[in-house]
């Protein structure tokens, strides 16, 4: 199964200068768990901020949500893979880079994101189709 079949194509962006509070607002409003971070003055480079980053790096340490900038806690570079990649390749990349979320690219653009749950769902679908997977 190609990663493009199971990915989530809704990608939301946030500026690195925004506060963590704004990131939470956006995640809750859009019902998503990660945002792609755009850093000021850097055209090519993106990062990512996840719900886990916010909980572990800000809320658990009792930092002020309005004072901490997204850029301070975002991870970079973005771990990404081509949209033609197979699910097993994404799983390998997650294991190798220790992330639970891989972004999907088409050329230079980001067109989706695959999370751990998507990999599990895709694996079950392949099994149901009779494909020889785990």
């Amino acid at each position, binding site marked *: 199964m190609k990663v493009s079949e199971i990915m989530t194509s809704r990608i939301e962006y946030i500026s690195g200068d925004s506060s963590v509070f704004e990131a939470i607002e956006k995640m809750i409003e859009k019902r998503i768990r990660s945002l792609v971070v755009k850093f000021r003055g850097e055209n090519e480079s993106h990062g990512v901020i996840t719900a886990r980053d916010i909980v572990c790096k800000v809320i658990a340490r009792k930092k002020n949500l309005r004072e901490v900038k997204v850029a301070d806690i975002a991870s970079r570079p973005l771990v990404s893979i081509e949209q033609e990649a197979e699910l097993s390749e994404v799983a390998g990349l997650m294991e190798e880079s220790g992330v639970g979320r891989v972004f999907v690219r088409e050329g230079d653009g980001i067109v989706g994101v695959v999370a751990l749950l998507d990999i599990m769902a895709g694996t*079950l679908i392949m099994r149901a189709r009779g494909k020889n997977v785990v």
Partner: protein
Amino acid sequence: MWFNRFFSRGKSEKRVLDKIRSHIELLCRACEIFRSALENEDHDSMRRISNLEREADSIKREIISCIYEGAFLPYLRPNLCKFIETVDDVFDLLEDTSFHAMNLYLPHGIRDESNRVALLNQRMCEMLLITFEAMVAGEDLREKILAIRIYEKKIDDMKFGILCDLKELSIDSYWHGKSLSDFVSGLTTISDIIEDAGDYLQIIHLSMH
């Protein structure tokens, strides 16, 4: 065939099963044509959905007649009929949605998401066929039904995003808004009905044990 161990080995059961198979295969074909027509904005192909719906209607009537002429044990007949009616509901909704699609201009973001939903609907139909074949063969349906539910959940998540995008659009007239709303509603409800059809297969499968 596993089915034959439970029912009379008559030809009528086999005829019903063959026709149900054709009915679902036709649905797979209709969903594939819909997906391709939506992607390519091909109105001629989109018009073919109506013909397929009529063809499906005729297959449905034949199946129901066969069943009430005596195929299968009476306690199984209601759920078999409900399954067939549910598959037919998908055809009806697909036809309505294809009409709306022909009269709409979809903005870029919504078009991409709609194409993806149409592809997932097609995959769900294929999974419904796989589930039906597994039921006839007497295999376990658990993984297949789960796969159908995964697809449905995925489409449900995408629906929320599309609705958010819809709210941002400027609407020219009541009919423009209604068409757009009906199109999205139809496109994202197809998966709910396929899921219901899958549930009926599971009920039929369970009632045979």
